[in-house]
């Protein structure tokens, strides 16, 4: 006889728990629908070719287009850097508000002099960044860039390529990643249209 109230209490408790859970899930869904979860802030310490430090604080106050690659990359990197230049051209006078950045993922082979010459061949406005392998890896992790040195398969001794994420990050004046674009998916005109609104002066 004592079993029934216990059973009923159990059912009621379960029902309450279930409804609370459903409400929580709904709230969560609504939250996800309206609020974009804040991306973890970018943190990195890299170096320009003159040895000066360049970190996330250097991104403040200006829009940046940031791409991770390497100079021995024969197809993908020239394609993406070429695309960045075309995006800057489409921005017209607003391009002065946008800083293109090339970060090497191959600090072993990409010396500062090589990096400078490489980026300058594309556009003198590029900032080339490097660091120790640990610094470069930490920076890549912060942006969500994956890179893996290929097992050398070429007949050229010691030669290797690096598989890597082909994404150009658009970082706003507050140092937040606001777009992940690529020449594979977005033509320069559309990319410029996405970037144009964030180049303006802050209110």
């Amino acid at each position, binding site marked *: 006889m004592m079993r029934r109230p216990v059973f009923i209490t159990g059912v009621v408790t379960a029902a309450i728990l279930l409804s609370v859970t459903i409400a929580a899930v709904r709230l969560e869904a609504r939250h996800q629908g309206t609020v974009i979860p804040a991306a973890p802030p970018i943190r990195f310490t890299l170096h320009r070719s003159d040895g000066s430090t360049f970190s996330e604080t250097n991104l403040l106050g200006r829009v940046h287009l940031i791409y991770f690659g390497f100079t021995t990359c024969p*197809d993908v990197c020239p394609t993406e850097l070429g695309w960045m230049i075309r995006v800057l051209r489409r921005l017209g006078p607003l391009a002065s508000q946008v800083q293109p950045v090339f970060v090497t993922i191959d600090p072993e082979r990409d010396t500062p002099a090589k990096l400078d010459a*490489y980026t300058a061949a594309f556009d003198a406005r590029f900032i080339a960044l490097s660091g120790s392998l640990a610094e470069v890896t930490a920076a890549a992790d912060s942006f969500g860039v994956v890179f893996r040195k290929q097992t050398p398969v070429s007949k050229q001794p010691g030669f290797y390529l690096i598989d890597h994420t082909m994404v150009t990050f658009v970082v706003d004046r507050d140092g937040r990643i606001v777009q992940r674009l690529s020449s*594979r998916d977005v033509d320069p005109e559309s990319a410029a249209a996405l970037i144009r609104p964030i180049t303006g002066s802050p209110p």
Partner: protein
Amino acid sequence: MSRLLLLILASCAWSAELSVSKIWSRATVAGQEAGAVFATITAGSTADRLQSASSAIAAVVEVHEHAAGADGVVQMRAVIDGVAIGAGSTVELKPRSYHIMLIGLKQPLVKGTPLTVTLMFSQHAPITVQAEVLDPWAMAFDDR
């Protein structure tokens, strides 16, 4: 009438020949180890296959392909079996696709200075061509 037939036959024989056009590359800077050559290849009346390539300007020349994973990670890999070109079909070696990779450049590729490359096929005799060296940011033969 027989002369006309001969003319038609002759033009058919001409079009049946494999052809390579729009051959181009991108300029490199001193110290840059690798470059890429792009081209448009049209097979003749028989299917063919671009097997390999060579050039005096590089230590090693390989035919490569581009592959992109869903996670945005891209890779370039040597093509072992070559690039198939169906009879009468055209294959374009272009950015983010197939390319002839120059590894161990002996000197930089200079814009405006043509580059000699020999292409080897499974059927057709080797063809030696001149690639035009364009800007580092060029995306196509006509992009200049």
